[in-house]
């Protein structure tokens, strides 16, 4: 049964939305952003900040768009003088106790109080300098969150998130009137596995991440869409980079996967993307030592190994590798007796109680499912046993792995393993922040991530490496892009058939 559609007019534009839609959401269809603070599509409606006041024809008073449902024939005016005056009044009142902290506040540049004040606020304050502003000392709420009460506008997004989404009411509103602030019981800490989201939700610089504190200015950041590598949930994230260093990870909305949130494990899981101790050049064995070489030489060396090999090939791969890389790594060994395997680090699952099917998953890797779809097995012990008598063993980005084999080891990875000398060829690759690629999450959803910074030295995306190796060994065509790689694999892999990169 189709949803009944309601027709209304917002700022002169006709809009058609399902019955039950809030005016503030319907306005987005008309290309209108109604200024707001306490409203958030991922949280229950509060209607307290009063910022989203709009004029609705036939209503005697201004209405808040976040709590008003659309009605047939409704006429909404967000820019009427009355509505603008109402919102200007709210902004003025929010600023009377708000400190002029912009020069030292992390939120500057991505602050909704700045944005809407600039857009609709008063040019100057009427709050006499004779009055002191409300003052409360900064509080440390827990592992990563600082609370600056002076900047708080009491939108209560954080309280509602912890109560209704995390289902652990550890934050409250304390006191009454203009003495109110966000409180926490002295015996409690904000250490819920998803608590970091309150920092994102805070429209101003009141709740801050200790990890990000004073690290970078919002306008210095480049933002790239990516997928979290922390577990198999596949939360959509944005990597914020400054001068090619990843400085912050934030959630990217995806209503089907992670809604508006990521867990703290994923949020903090980025420092390794900036590691300096990377393999920066291909390495080949010569006279018992690994020597730096160029790609041509390295590829030729591998090609030689492949041409001479008969029998068994074993690939021991990381479930963090992209689907494209895993596909081409498999294709490389066509014709050989091939075993591919991976193992996943496990951890404790931590669901976000208020959202169905969203949790920090026990499988702490982003592409186990992708590996599965490509025929890699989880029977690691068997693969290790097979490796002992294999002609070629490919190890893909598992630096701690100890492999015993009579054959040759080709190591393709980001970081140089301790036992590198056991390998005949070592090839440097990009990490998730340095390439385009695809992960398949635990539900079989293929999701794209994009390059946020350049790979160091001569490192290349793994899909490119395997494509070059295949070409050098005469076993396949060169592939020009990650997109092309995906198109090739989606033509032949069950579960990914027919998908095209967006």
């Amino acid at each position: 049964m189709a949803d009944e559609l309601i027709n209304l007019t917002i700022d002169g534009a006709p809009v058609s939305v399902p019955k039950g839609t809030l005016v503030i959401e319907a306005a987005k269809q008309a290309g209108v952003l109604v200024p707001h603070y306490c409203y958030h599509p991922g949280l229950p409606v509060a209607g307290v900040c009063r910022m989203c006041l709009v004029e609705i024809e036939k209503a005697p008073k201004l209405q808040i768009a976040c709590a008003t449902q659309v009605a047939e024939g409704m006429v909404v005016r967000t820019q009427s003088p009355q509505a603008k005056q109402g919102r200007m009044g709210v902004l003025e009142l929010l600023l009377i106790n708000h400190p002029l902290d912009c020069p030292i506040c992390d939120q500057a540049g991505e602050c909704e109080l700045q944005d809407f004040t600039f857009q609709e606020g008063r040019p100057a304050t009427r709050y006499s300098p004779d009055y002191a502003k409300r003052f409360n000392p900064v509080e440390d709420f827990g592992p990563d969150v600082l609370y600056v009460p002076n900047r708080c506008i009491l939108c209560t997004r954080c309280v509602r998130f912890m109560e209704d989404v995390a289902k652990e009411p550890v934050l409250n509103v304390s006191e009454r009137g203009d003495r109110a602030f966000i409180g926490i019981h002295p015996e409690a800490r904000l250490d819920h596995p998803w608590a970091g989201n309150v920092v994102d939700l805070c429209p101003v610089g009141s709740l801050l991440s200790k990890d990000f504190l004073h690290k970078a200015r919002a306008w210095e950041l480049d933002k790239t869409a990516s997928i979290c590598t922390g577990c198999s949930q596949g939360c959509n994230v944005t990597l914020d980079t400054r001068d090619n260093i990843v400085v912050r990870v934030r959630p990217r909305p995806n209503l089907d996967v992670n809604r508006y949130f990521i867990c703290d494990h994923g949020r903090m899981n980025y420092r390794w993307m900036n590691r300096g101790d990377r393999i920066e050049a291909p390495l080949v064995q010569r006279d018992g030592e690994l020597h730096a070489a160029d790609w041509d030489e390295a590829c030729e060396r591998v090609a030689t190994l492949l041409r001479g090999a008969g029998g068994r090939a074993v690939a021991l791969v990381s479930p963090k590798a992209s689907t494209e890389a895993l596909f081409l790594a498999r294709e490389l060994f066509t014709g050989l007796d091939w075993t591919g395997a991976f193992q996943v680090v496990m951890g404790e699952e931590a669901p976000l109680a208020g959202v169905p099917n969203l949790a920090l998953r026990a499988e702490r890797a982003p592409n186990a499912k992708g590996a599965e779809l490509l025929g890699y097995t989880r029977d690691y012990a068997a693969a290790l046993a097979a490796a002992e008598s294999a002609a070629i063993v490919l190890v893909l980005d598992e630096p701690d792995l100890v492999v015993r084999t009579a054959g040759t080891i080709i190591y393709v990875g980001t970081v140089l393993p301790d036992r590198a000398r056991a390998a005949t060829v070592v090839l440097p690759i990009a990490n998730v922040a340095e390439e385009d690629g695809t992960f398949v999450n635990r539900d079989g959803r293929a999701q794209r991530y994009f390059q946020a910074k350049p790979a160091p030295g001569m490192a290349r995306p793994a899909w490119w490496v395997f494509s070059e190796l295949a070409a050098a060994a005469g076993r396949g065509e060169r592939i020009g892009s990650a997109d092309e790689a995906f198109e090739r694999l989606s033509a032949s892999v069950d579960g990914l058939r027919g998908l095209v990169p967006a």
Partner: protein
Amino acid sequence: MSVTAHPSSTPAGTDAYDPVFSGAVLEQLGEILARYPTKQAGLLPALWIVQRARGWISDRNMAEVAEVLGLTPAYVKGVVTFYTMYHQHPVGKHFVQVCTTSPCNICGAEAVAKAFLETTGAKELGATSPDGKWTVIEVECLGACGFATPVLVDDDFIESVTPDKVPELVRKYK
């Protein structure tokens, strides 16, 4: 930026805490809870029981109430700090509330408050007198405006108080 850190959490029961809700008191709470479809609705009554038993409501008391009612300590604290009649610190043996909102204000309420401060030795509103016997505060409308100035001394609602009546009143409470 100076920061106030929260002490690491102390698991309940490691220090010697004397629970309020045990035995007869717990039974009393049970009777009250039967009046409502949710345990949460027993929060205000439970807090009154604590204040009656201990004179004030400490953070530790709040944690106990939370446990008994299936709420979080933070939630209980949010409620306690909303309602001004719950004491979050110990107060004097006698707690005096003097109404000074406009209807009583124009009938000399502020002089009554001042008289209490002087007579009890509490000196400042909200402070406890040096002998620990008195705390005096100004409150908003007590709902007895025609009997100005009304004063609550503990649970005793006293009407028509004037400054000259204060010394005798104070004497009555030892």
